[in-house]
């Protein structure tokens, strides 16, 4: 029997509103003829993604998304736009010739295949809001990172170190 509490009206309305903002922002990222507008649309997409993580009850990932992506990565992108002296107004020379003619069929085909597989595979599965582990709890998450996934965590710190040194070596002027 379908109960009113199973439909979760409020969550669904929130999901579709945020999803619409994200999709429109993403289209603006790939279609805009102004580099700064594309970067600011990317902020909307990433903020929307953080909100979706909250709907999926992953609070720590949502906060990290805001800190790292909106805080750090976007500043890096705006610096990149500034240092490569992109035109700050409209710039018609941002797209490949005939790129849309190739890109649109590829993207549509990809989406068609993925949507078919997902709808076939997960027909009306629901997200679990209760389980044997405390859902979305940062304590459980940190227990996992520092026990089961400790080795990847170490590897990741080396990757970050290498990336920082590499970026300095590449971008240094001499």
């Amino acid at each position, binding site marked *: 029997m379908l109960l009113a509490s199973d439909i979760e009206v409020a969550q669904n309305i929130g999901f579709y509103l945020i999803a619409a903002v994200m999709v429109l922002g993403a289209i603006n990222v790939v279609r805009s003829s102004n580099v700064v507008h594309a970067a600011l649309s990317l902020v909307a997409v990433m903020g929307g993604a953080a909100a979706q993580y909250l709907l999926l009850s992953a609070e720590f990932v949502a906060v990290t998304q805001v800190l790292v992506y909106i805080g750090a990565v976007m500043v890096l992108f705006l610096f990149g736009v500034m240092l490569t002296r992109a035109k700050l107004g409209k710039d018609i020379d941002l797209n490949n010739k005939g790129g849309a003619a190739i890109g649109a069929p590829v993207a549509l085909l990809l989406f068609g295949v993925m949507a078919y597989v997902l709808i076939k595979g997960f027909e009306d599965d629901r997200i679990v809001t209760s389980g044997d582990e405390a859902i979305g709890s940062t304590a459980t998450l940190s227990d996992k990172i520092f026990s089961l996934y400790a080795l990847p965590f170490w590897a990741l710190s080396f990757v970050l170190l290498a990336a920082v040194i590499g970026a300095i070596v*590449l971008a240094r002027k001499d």
Partner: protein
Amino acid sequence: MLVNNFLILGAVLFSIGVYGVIARKNAVLVLMSIELILNSVNINLLAFDRINGTQDGAVFALYIIAIAAAEVGVGLAMVLLIFRNRKTIALDDLSEMKG
């Protein structure tokens, strides 16, 4: 909520990102499209995580965020280097390695 809501949203963002990688010429905008793809994968991982009711997907998502930060750092350093040497970051001008 249906898990397919999140998975289809991920698929839409992924396809838009792939379109951007193909259609854009400016290197900074290609990097932005790659960020779209990485974000869509993160949404998928967290949705799968919620199917199982465990926290493993959240760990993967955090690691992907860290990798993406490293990738943008190195990528933009390379773009700056290319701009300094060539005065352009249009990707179709960089064709020396074409056979």
